[in-house]
């Protein structure tokens, strides 16, 4: 069993004070966790009780400061198997009780060290629940964490000067710059072109498990570049930012849909799909970020407990099919908590998407069957 002691991170030894200031002026005090310094981003909360390592490395959290509602974070340390991307993606991290030691047979390093090494500024503070309630009631907002500033007003000024999430085009900042291939596990059945808008490692892995050779492409790939691979199917990934600012992706997807190639989208990919169909997207008050969200498949009535990470959603009529430039479409999935759209499909063409995360990581595996559905579409297309 691996154990690493990290005295410096012990909140019972308040050696390094830190402060969190929200754009409406609410201020929280705590101790530094991770790197020293100052950071800004959109303040959001995540309600998952497991999977902090996956959360930290999820590119969709780019430019966001993430607060964990689960109080004890870091207990199982950091291992080399679970990251969802090559680096820690969050802009800042807020926890209540950072672990003083890591305890797990797979642990290699402590979380505090990992954050410090990655230069991620965090804060350990008692008021994470108060923060969550504040965001729930007032909506996600900009915030800053500082271990150097002592004057909240000064920090607030810098928070107000930081960029907003609305209108932010961030997929370009996190997607791969060069294409790469994730080979199929076992026999290759399909070639998938996956546009990386902030893709998580588990997504191509889930496809590879099903015999897909996944060509991961940069976020700004055009329809021509995508179709040039002669893919059996095209995938648009999750990612950060405002979908309204990613017209290049919408244009690329329209080209793919015109070509009639089977399409599957997740999260940001769902929003891009919605926009490609002519639907609007909007910012949720505080978003869905957690691994316990009930999503109902409207065709079967079945409910999946699912992993979510989205601040924006698609506007669509949920009670009926509707017309789009690509024929009739419908909402396939809804969130039972707030009724928000969680899935779309074209009725007459092989294209669908979901707002939530069937690849999970972190989160429940209830919805992994959606990858099979994608494979079926590709299969049918091949046979057809």
């Amino acid at each position, binding site marked *: 069993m691996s154990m690493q002691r990290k005295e410096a991170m012990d909140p*019972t030894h308040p050696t390094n004070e830190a402060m969190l200031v929200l754009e409406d002026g609410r201020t929280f005090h705590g101790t530094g966790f991770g790197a020293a310094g100052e950071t800004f981003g959109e303040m959001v909360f995540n309600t998952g009780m497991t*999977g902090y390592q996956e959360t930290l490395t999820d590119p969709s959290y780019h430019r966001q400061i993430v607060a964990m509602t*689960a109080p004890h974070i870091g207990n199982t340390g950091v291992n080399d198997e679970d990251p969802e991307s090559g680096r820690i993606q969050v802009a800042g991290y807020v926890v209540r009780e950072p672990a003083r030691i890591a305890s797990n047979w797979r642990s290699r390093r402590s979380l505090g060290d990992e954050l410090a090494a990655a230069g991620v500024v965090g804060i350990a503070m008692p*008021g994470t629940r108060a923060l*969550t309630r504040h965001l*729930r009631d007032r909506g996600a907002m900009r915030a800053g964490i500082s271990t150097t500033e002592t004057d909240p007003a000064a920090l607030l000024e810098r928070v107000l000067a930081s960029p907003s999430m609305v209108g932010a085009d961030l997929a370009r900042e996190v997607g791969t710059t060069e294409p790469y291939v994730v080979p199929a596990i076992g026999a290759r059945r399909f070639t998938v072109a996956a546009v990386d808008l902030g893709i998580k490692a588990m997504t191509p892995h889930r496809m590879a498990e099903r015999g897909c050779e996944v060509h991961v492409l940069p976020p700004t790939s055009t329809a021509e570049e995508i179709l040039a691979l002669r893919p059996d199917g095209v995938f648009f990934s999750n990612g950060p930012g405002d979908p309204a600012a990613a017209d290049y992706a919408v244009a690329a997807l329209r080209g793919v849909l015109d070509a009639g190639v089977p399409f599957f989208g997740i999260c940001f990919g769902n929003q891009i799909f919605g926009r490609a169909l002519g639907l609007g997207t909007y910012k949720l008050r505080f978003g869905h970020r957690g691994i316990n969200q*009930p999503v109902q498949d409207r065709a079967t009535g079945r409910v999946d*407990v699912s992993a979510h990470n989205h601040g924006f959603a698609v506007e669509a009529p949920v009670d009926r099919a509707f017309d789009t430039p690509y024929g009739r479409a419908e909402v396939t999935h809804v969130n039972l908590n707030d009724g928000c759209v969680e899935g779309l499909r074209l009725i007459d063409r092989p294209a669908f998407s979901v707002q939530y995360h069937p690849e999970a990581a972190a989160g429940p595996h209830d919805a992994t069957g959606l990858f099979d559905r994608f494979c079926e579409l590709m299969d049918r297309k091949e046979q057809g």
Partner: protein
Amino acid sequence: MSPRADLRSVLVIGSGPIVIGQACEFDYSGTQACRVLKAEGLRVTLVNSNPATIMTDPEFADATYVEPITPEVVEKIIAKERPDALLPTLGGQTALNTAVALHEAGVLERYGVELIGADIDAIQAGENRERFKEIVARVADKYGLNAESARSVICHTMDECLAAAADLGYPMVVRPSFTMGGAGSGMAYDEAGLRRIAGAGLDASPTSEVLLEESILGWKEYELEVMRDKHDNVVIVCSIENLDPMGVHTGDSITVAPAMTLTDREYQNMRDVAIAVIREVGVDTGGCNIQFAVHPGTGRMIVIEMNPRVSRSSALASKATGFPIAKIAARLAIGYTLDEIPNDITKETPASFEPTLDYVVVKVPRFAFEKFPAADRTLTTHMKSVGEAMAIGRSFPEALQKALRSLEQQGSSFSWAGEPGDPAELLARAALPHEGRLRDVQRALWAGATVEETHAATGIDPWFLDQIAAINEVADRVRSAEDALTRGNLLAAKRYGFSDAQLGELRSLSEEVVRELRYALGVRPVYQTVDTCAAEFAARTPYLYSSYDEETEVPPGDRPKVIILGSGPNRIGQGVEFDYSCVHASFTLAEAGYETVMVNCNPETVSTDYDTSGRLYFEPLTLEDVLEVVHAEQRSGTVAGVIVQLGGQTPLGLAQRLKDAGVPIVGTSPESIHLAEERGAFGRVLARAGLPAPKHGTASSAAEAREIAAEIGYPVLVRPSYVLGGRGMEIVYDDETLSAYMEKATAASPEHPVLVDRFLDESIEIDVDALYDGEELFLGGVMEHIEEAGIHSGDSACALPPITLGHDDVKRIRESTEALAAGIGVRGLMNVQYALSSGVVYVLEANPRASRTIPFVSKATAVPLAKAAARVMLGATIAELRAEGLLPAEGDGGTLPLDAPIAVKEAVLPFDRFRTREGQGVDTVLGPEMRSTGEVMGIDEVFGTAFAKSQQAAYGSLPTKGRAFVSVANRDKRHMIFPVKRLSDLGFEILATEGTAEVLRRNGVRARVVRKHSEGPGSGGEPTIVRRVLDGEVDLIVNTPFGSPGQSGPRLDGYEIRTAAVLRGVPCVTTVQGLAAAVQGIEAIVRGDVGVRSLQEHAERLRNARQVPPG
């Protein structure tokens, strides 16, 4: 309207008496189920033999049968009620087993009763080890999951065993096949051990077969609570991690929710396996609990078992998350799907989600080893705890320390008093699981043992150990801080769960001084909500816990508030009966327009269901924690008063100090409570009222005690003051024993002296529950003990109405009770114990509070005493309550009509759970110290039948034929002749020891002489009585104890006999009075007229009879 329109009536089976391993968590789940089913418009029939439960209150079902839970009796109920369906998953193993038996006997099919909640196949798949192993293997294979069962090999020869050992590795479990009660099982740590245990096992097994299984001792242990609906929607309600690794029963382990040391990958694998297993087993409309072991070094995961029903863990998970498993299981059973059921807490979101926690929950077990001094205290896979406390905090240390102080046991909290001690010695002690092990762990770490060393010694995960080390570090800082306590270090310590008392100990200050300082510095807790969703949605249900966090969430309220203090963790002497009274008070006061506020820390109870009261505070019942709740409630509205007299001794003990702190106590005042509890004051009350009491004195030294005994004469009853459940009470016959007792007692309770009373050994004991409003007395019930005097009232069977008392006796009891109530100043309930000896009614003691018998009396007389008491405490008069209809218009429990039913309460004792270190049973003889865990009620028209039912419910049916063994003390010989003769006439063959046989023969009863245990087997191999009992040759044992405890000779003989009786499950009567009752019971069964009748029918008949005044 429920989705299953074809179901109009449902039978719910409860779990019977509270026993170790099956306690009031099933009252909680059953009550929820009954409420849900009734709300759905279904006719609910309930059977449960336990009168102390809330579920058996007539208002929760349409027909409530307080009858023995046996397949025969339940069949009679089915024949009478003809329910459409049977719901067996909410009454523990008792209900499940009964349902399976009814199915196998063809009863369900015969009456067209559908089993809902789980089908027979699913129940059996979960129960059968081999089938379950196959299921685990199948799902692992089918879904490619990391899951397996412990590897095992069946061997027939020693060579096979040795070969298997090479594969399985040491240590390993050896289980001989088909031996009784798993006899001959053991753990082999090396080849020598294997040869010894397996060798004996191969000999002992009738098939020469042993099962060798790899040991998973010391692995990490987890549980998941899973629910599935008919559309195959599955949710995991909660993960629970055991702090104590494998080897300690989960009921005896400290457990933590949510799991603390799993990565998402490991957790999701566990979740996938749980879902695959529930699907494969086929539980499709309900919940189950699945247990896992994880190897700490490799992550290899073993699926241990599943229970296709609600359980102790599901009650805990419900309280830990705010997701009411039993309630939802009942809905699923009648056809709802999870997405159709709203989340009660948020009101807006559905139940088809998984709760997420932003706090930590810790459950700690409560043991009662002090009641069984001979019992081995090592914790094993055999559950020994009698209750549990749960606490919620924003961190593990905060929750852990709150949980430990919730136990209300001296020494249950961490302490830094004295020198730390020797780490090696402490670690050696901590290596063996035992009650209080965690304190050894804490001391070891404090003494300098490293986390690594402590992990190696105990197997406890290093993360938990480090958290305890952090608590030690905070303690050290508080202690060594040079200045006085500052706001900063006080707040830091509070966030680590330190109580004012602990801080006082660290700083050599009194608890009160720390509190004053804390108030002055403005360090107060806030209250946050258990909301199922980590604050993602607003909570509409105020289910609160304290934390030294940032924002309080106590909602304002405009109705006057009544705070009800519950009774804390179940223990022997204070259990579900007190929860019953608290819950009733809450219901009735809510109806009367109050906002009710419950404070309790016992996760098993109905009182800690967020549905029970207007507000629920899941908090320890210490002065500090209660004061903070009162403060928070006062800040959010008006507190009309705090009720301390319904939750047993726990809140009563706080009464005076709460009042001193300015808290309004309603009902009997703390000063009046003192009048009843303090011997001198009570003596003056008695003297003023002219009531006789046994001669007595108060001693604070052995010499004083001997002096008093010399004056009043032996035998004497000795006990410490201010106790419940007869803790430390003994009957003493000589100076020597008295001196020894005083030595023990004064060490145990230095502030309080010991009471020495003349013991009236030839008397009838009588228990009375009464209600007094200052003007009028309402005699709730007069109960006559069946056992002789000197047996704790909680362990004694009793009958109501009294079966041998005359009109004049009851009249005198009424007068005495009224005089006492007035003299003490009771407002509300009072329990009095009397002894009737030579025509004199002596007052033994009076307790101005709800008693253990309140629910029994309420059910036997169809009067809601606890509700009436709560109203009286808040100012209503008995006359008003009579006018309102809450109490009968005329008469009371002392004027029951002649044809009122007879109710018999019988105690259930846990002797079969305990063994001495040498593996022997513990003595089962009853005494003045209470040791029963629960009770049952038999109710019928005549005493014999009611008694027979009570025995059947508690211990299984009385025999109607076979062999009865009789061995009684000399003083009992005269009284046993007639009942034994009757047994003989009924066809029993009578066996007796020599002295008893002689008396019987002289009186014309044919009795065969058998050898005593101390005589050993005869020259011709004639077995002793103990051997005969063990061989199953005896069907009924009558053995009254004599001789002094602990000596050899007759006393020890009796011990051996009774122990054998427990081992074989043979009914064992230990008093002559009990024998007479048993004979009446046997006669009733022989007559064959044992029917069933619901409480509602009994009440209806009683109401009708009351209208005709007794002639």
